[in-house]
């Protein structure tokens, strides 16, 4: 098996509600990538999953050099998946249940003086009703995104991680 040694610490954080069909895309992506990382003994990569982002996640991400947030999207302009680099925001949503990755970066910088590279991977979903399981269309998009990230991980160094991408 290949073994990729790297000192950079990367976090993949999937979030969403697996009880609402394709809203579970972020968490499912992380589960599958975790298996790949384990099988290929890729070092320096960790995972976290939750229903939603919380303010204390600002502390979690301060421990990493790069963080990929992974979430589902309904946005029709996203054909299959989209990877974007984020910058900090002090904008508060109405509610702590809608804390954004940008807001977490702000918490990270303000409270912990850390400035990890933050990216958001959104995967296009289609079904949002109350049941578990990803739709076949969304699963195809997930596999495409997974393949891209897997390739990047296999050949990565600190500078080679993608700053954006789209499929």
């Amino acid at each position, binding site marked *: 098996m290949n073994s990729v040694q790297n000192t950079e610490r990367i976090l993949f954080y999937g979030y969403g509600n697996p009880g609402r069909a394709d809203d579970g895309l972020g968490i499912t992506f992380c589960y599958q990538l975790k298996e790949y990382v384990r099988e290929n003994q890729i070092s320096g990569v960790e995972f976290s999953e939750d229903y939603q982002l919380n*303010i204390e996640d600002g502390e979690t991400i301060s421990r990493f050099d790069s963080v990929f947030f992974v979430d589902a999207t309904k946005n029709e302009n996203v054909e299959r998946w989209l990877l974007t680099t984020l910058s900090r925001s002090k904008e508060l949503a109405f509610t702590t249940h809608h804390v954004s990755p940008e807001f977490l970066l702000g*918490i990270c910088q303000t409270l912990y003086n850390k400035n990890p590279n933050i990216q958001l991977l959104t995967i296009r979903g289609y079904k949002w009703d109350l049941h578990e399981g990803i739709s076949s269309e969304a699963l195809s998009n997930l596999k495409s995104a997974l393949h891209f990230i897997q390739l990047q991980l296999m050949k990565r160094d600190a500078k080679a991680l993608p700053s954006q991408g789209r499929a």
Partner: protein
Amino acid sequence: MSRKITIEPVTRVEGHGKVTIHLDDAGKIASSRLHIVEFRGFERFVQGRPYWEAPVLVQRLCGICPVSHHLAAAKALDMVVGVKQSELTPTGMKMRRLMHYGQVFQSHALHFFYLASPDLLFGIESNPAMRNVVGVSDANRELARKGIQMRKFGQEIIKYTAGKKIHGTGAIPGGINKNMSQQELDYFYKGDPSMHPDRMVENALEALEFFHDYFTKNREMLDTFAHHRTSHLSMVSRDGGLDLYHGVLRAIDADGKVILNNVDYREYTDHIVEGVKNWSYMKFPYLRHLGPERGWYRVGPLARLNVCDFIPTPLAQKELEFFRSTTGAHPNHSTMHSHWARLIEILHAAEVIRDLLRDPDLQGEELITRGSKGREGIGVIEAPRGTLIHHYQIDDNDQLSMANLIVSTTHNNEAMNAAVYEVAKSKIEGHTEITEGMMNSVEVAIRAYDPCLSCATHAIGNMALVVSLYAGGEEREDQLIHRMTRGGETPGSTCSL
């Protein structure tokens, strides 16, 4: 001329509520109401489901305190499957206790640091743009970091006991479905030092030190803001100690006289009645033998510290003694002291968690106790916000046929309305112009109860809100006296007078 003021929604609380304040012809407060405008229906739609689903289903009542509902339902179903709390295995009991104290720890930390501290740090009538968790982060990094650490710690305790941080499945009828592995335990002792249980005790003591300093400088406000005499109710252990997981029901009146003592909570229907009013979906519980006018009470941290005889952990007990010294032999009715009581409970929870994590029973292999099945179960627990009651009946098909839930905030309904009335009298009566600070004053009184109005989550400021004062009771522009907007207009968020 009589007037009506409406505040909708109430911010930095869990869920949706609105406040209406009626002024009479002389401009005096005639009445005030906290309306709960959500209808959830859990008691109805869980009927027909297999009874063992209850601990999982009812967690969906809340994303902030799901563990409380999970454990209250599990306790009720212990009774259904014929298992007493004293018959749970040591591993089962201690895992559940650890889960519960982890929940209390993180919930109280979230409330104090994220929701309440902005008012304390910046002032009730300060700039609303600052009065949120971002403002706290900018003004007091150490306080903000402490809050984050403590909330994270409590969530990790829940993850390793319930299986996941939100909507876990650890407690089942008759016991639990997992123990705590050595690897999970190592997270707290061999991982990040900031997650060490001793650090949480230190953090809790430092938070109390912050509050002592604040108390010294702001005692008059803390003592008098929304102060109102009430009875208090909570569960205590059989020897009268603070016990958040299991015990007997006790209540005291406003003078400290015991009005309900050592009641088995399975007999709650003999003692607690749920009143209804036509202007709110939330009920109004009261003690049966005293009636609706005299029988209502508070629950939650302030009530618990008023009702219990002692706290069984030494550092929190010492804090309790100082807390009580401020009111002498009398119960504490100062609503803002709820924040202090909450911090004392955080310290108590930290001590309990530290001691439980050292107990090898957590790695035990016996997880479940079996008994003879019955048809009815009642489970009561002291949730972060107060006494929580779950009551179920099952039919011949093992399906739930009845569910009655009295959540903590419901017990506090009358008390919160009384608090709103007190603040309205002191802050709004006699004024023709409503300021944002006045609105927040009313909200501060409600927020001290840490209500879980369910559903819509914690709003942390800048909620779009419009408050308008009209003469003559009609919402017409030619009758407009004054309008105040915060964060942009929200259709429907108006008041009329």
